């Protein structure tokens, strides 16, 4: 058991590759983290540097209805081929999250693919998003096209590149990222 004494890599570490999209849509620090399974399925999560997760902020509401005509909650897939799932592009909004200070953030797909499911648990328990942003507080699950499963991560940063971006940021700005409406 000696080697297991050391903290073993987590489930996420073992089966998923972490990809990052920083400053999404030019909004400073709105970083997303995409967990890609070796079977190409992607789980969209907030990166730990996202403003929502800073300074003990609280969530007022999470809304998967991204426009009058479109709610991600209506997404239904059927069969092995996941017929009927909404097809998303990189900049497709997944949900809008409003913090108790009334600042609203939009979470984006970041990759092209078919929407398989959104996480309804965070609607009932928004704290999941704050406490476990990279596991139970995930935002959505997306299945990229088979032929695009390699190329969808082309515009994303690796874990190392992401860490470099974040440390550069802290160097420029002594304080951690602040929300900037």
């Amino acid at each position, binding site marked *: 058991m000696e080697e297991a004494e050391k903290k073993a890599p987590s489930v996420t570490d073992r089966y998923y590759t972490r990809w990052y999209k920083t400053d999404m849509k030019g909004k400073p620090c709105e970083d997303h983290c995409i967990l890609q399974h070796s*079977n190409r*399925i992607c789980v969209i999560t907030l990166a730990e540097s996202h403003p929502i997760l800073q300074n003990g902020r609280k969530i007022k509401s999470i809304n998967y209805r991204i426009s009058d005509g479109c709610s991600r909650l209506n997404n239904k897939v059927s069969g*092995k081929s996941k017929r009927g799932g909404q097809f998303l592009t990189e900049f497709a909004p997944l949900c809008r999250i409003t913090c108790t200070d009334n600042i609203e953030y939009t979470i984006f797909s970041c990759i092209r693919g078919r929407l398989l499911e959104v*996480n309804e*648990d965070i609607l009932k328990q928004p704290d999941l998003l704050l406490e476990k942003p990279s596991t*139970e507080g995930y935002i959505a699950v997306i299945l990229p096209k088979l032929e695009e499963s390699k190329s969808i991560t082309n515009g994303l940063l690796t874990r190392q590149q992401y860490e470099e971006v974040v440390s550069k940021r802290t160097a420029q700005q002594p304080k951690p990222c602040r929300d900037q409406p």
Partner: protein
Amino acid sequence: MLSLKEKDSPIVRKLLDAGCCARCVLRFCCVGKCSSYQLPSEDINKELLAFLSEADGEQSHGAAEQTQTEDPPCKKLKLDSAPVGQDGSSEASAAHTEPNVQSEICVACLGVLQDFCDLSYTKQVCEVVRKADYKFGSLVLAVSLPAQLSVREHSCWLHIKKEVKEKSMCLDKEDVVQVKDAFKWAIQGMVGKELGTPVLTNSLFEVSVGFTHPETEADCHFLATTCSDCFKPTKNKASVFTRMAVVKALDKISDAKFLRHYPCPPVRPASKCTPLDTTCLHTSVFIAGRYNKFSRELPQTPWVIDGERRMEGSVEELIADPLLSSFRADGFNFSSSGREDVDVRTLGNGRPFAMELLNPHRAKFNGAEVRQLQEVINASSDKIRVRDLQIVTRDAMGRMKEGEEEKTKSYSALIWTKKAITNSDLDFIANIKELKIDQKTPLRVLHRRPLAVRQRVIHSMSASYLDTHHFRLQLHTQAGTYIKEFVHGDFGRTKPNLCALMESEVDILELDVEDSVYVPLPTTLDDL
């Protein structure tokens, strides 16, 4: 002896005139005696001619006038063109028919019952069978004939229908011996003798011969316009004129309509059939057993992602390789009662599996030989072990997947917990009984399975302490429960999960399948 009756003579005469071969004449006379077809062609010809002259001898008195008026036009034509005298009629007709019988290709069978019923073609077929190197105790012959043969058969039938009905009202087209059967009767004796095995109507070993005749393929085409509904294009078939479709169309078409579109009797072909390659096929053998998997780096079936092999070897290949070489099979299909992940071991009695061995060149293995095979498999790798290996029926293979949901499985898992483990944690786990959990299709299989929430039952659990952050978890669960996801929660998609139950981050480091309880197949063999 051809067992022809006196009333057959008009049929015989008409068919010989139309250009039918001797064996086809026997067929249309409904001769059902196999041995008649086994005689050499020349001998049947001679007997037919002898039969005709005998019949003519008997008929030449008093019946002459009637013959003159009732003869169908084609015979009249022949009679007209030949120098027929009142007394010499028998000689004349014999002299006339002889060349037709001997030198020309039959309008009905396109030569199948002429040139391919001899010893030289038989030897050719047997040579292929011998080269293919099968072990077999008997064989069945399968014959595939060009579809247009049915059209020609129908035309010949219409040509002599009246005479057959005169012979006996009971006889109909179905009583005519089929080309296929006549062919088998003619050669099966020789094939059996050549190969030293009986040729039966049913055998696990099939030798297929076939013929094509491109010259007359267009014979069928008129049916497509007269009976268009019988010829629906299908994806896999190169031509819509399959034998089945042609037979169906001929069944529907009226005699008058047929005669308007197709000559009766059929036109003489310029060439004989071309034989297709002879092929051999042995019915699959099914073999079943249970396997243990002792490696955490071995998938059950080859693991391929994007066309690339992810890991060397697989359970099915380790089992199949020795079997393929012993049975000398062309391929296999593997089936098992469920499957385990690459990194999961399968211990205990093992997981039931069955394998279909395709086209085995050797199919018979006795109990001792099967046990020997099992030893060969087990000696070939220490990653797996096979027991209860036995030859089973096709049905048993099908039942492998039955009742999978009802089965109970037991597992053993090595668990890591973030918090320090206490005795009350272990007690808490042991007290959980018949826990219902809801599992969304795990993310790790979601790319190939439908998204659904399935309820599963954890019947019981027990935990034994290893160190502050590790314990061994034994689980009895409903089959189909995803154990890994029950432990780590799969992003909260399995509820409840062990993380939630223990109020700690927990992870599964190792998993073994201990046993599948209640599995009817295969029979456990006594300790070997």
